[in-house]
């Protein structure tokens, strides 16, 4: 369908932009979060405020989890035994809560930006 075909250039542009992203972000600080037994480790992450950052979330469980934070406005599914990078910031000083949506009761944490 013509309509669907029209979206291909959009996709190509987005893909092109996505592929060029690492060259722009090369200098970001990366912080690692680990998901194990449906819990985040560490449960609190201290980060510098006012800078662009990257969160590397490693899922050591065999089942998928969804990192979700309304405070940070980020959501990302991470497959079991997988990992994902999430870019955040620059953050104003404060506390930003996040959860693992699939196991909200135990998977909770917060990022404190100073």
């Amino acid at each position, binding site marked *: *369908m013509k309509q669907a075909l029209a979206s291909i250039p959009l996709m190509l542009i987005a893909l092109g932009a996505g592929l060029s992203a690492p060259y722009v972000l090369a200098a970001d600080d990366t912080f690692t979060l680990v998901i194990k037994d449906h819990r985040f480790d560490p449960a609190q992450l201290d980060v510098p405020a006012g800078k662009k950052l990257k969160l590397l979330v490693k899922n050591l469980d065999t*089942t*998928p989890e969804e990192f979700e934070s309304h405070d940070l406005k980020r959501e990302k599914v991470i*497959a*079991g035994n997988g990992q994902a990078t999430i*870019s955040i910031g620059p953050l104003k000083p404060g506390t930003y809560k996040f959860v693992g949506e699939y196991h*909200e009761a135990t998977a909770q944490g917060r990022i404190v930006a100073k």
Partner: protein
Amino acid sequence: MLATAIIVFREALEAALVVSIVLAATRGVIRRGLWVSGGVFGGLLGATAVAFFADVIAAAASGVGQELFNATVLFVAVIMLGWHNVWMSRHGRELASSLKSAGEAVRGGARPMRVLAAVVGVAVLREGSELVLFLYGVAASESGESSGMLTGALTGVGAGVAIGAALYLGLLRIPSSRLFTVTGWMILLLAAGMASQGAAFLVQADILPALGESVWDTTALVSDQGVAGRVLHTLIGYTPRPYGIQVVFYLVALGGILTLMKIVNRTRHTSSNAEAALNSSTTPQPSN
């Protein structure tokens, strides 16, 4: 079980609302139930595939594959919804009058029907992929949870469908003469909301600038956690704390589609005025 129900409900609600609007907007079109069901089924198949390839997608495009995929799917839906409204601007009146005279059997609606079925499929695919992953996770872990998970999932879907059905029945109460106008507006807002959502994913992927972290903060009024917030989120694209770029995309989608609709509508009027002028001339014209 409750946790499962809540998560399933959230995703099912969004898809159910899209289905309801599509069903209301296609009232009278032949076999629309079949088309919409096809869309749902196709969406579920797609969702399973996306869930299966979740780690591949996530790792793609230097780690922002998931955001790009979500944004693309959303923008495709925006284009399809926009196309539907533009098509209706051109042909809506013919469609509505043939619906009045012929009752249920309206053949003219086949093309927009296909497009709207695709919109349904895409909505189910987006929401469904997260669901499939979640349910797989629950099923794969604690064995004793299976029956609880099934009940929870069914409850969640049921609740989502119930709200969708309430919307659909509410829309059906609108007199046929106005129904297409109302659903046209709902589709317009649906599209604008999806454009805004797509923009948010591109900000998350660090491809678009945010242009302001939070143009307004109405979390205290309507948070996006509750049912009201999620319904408004789907129907009009409500976000309690939108990025500036989200507002831009929203207005551009809204303005863009409206402009195209007006242009097409004006063309239709011009050509039908010319036809009317021809037909009313005193010289006998051969009938078409």
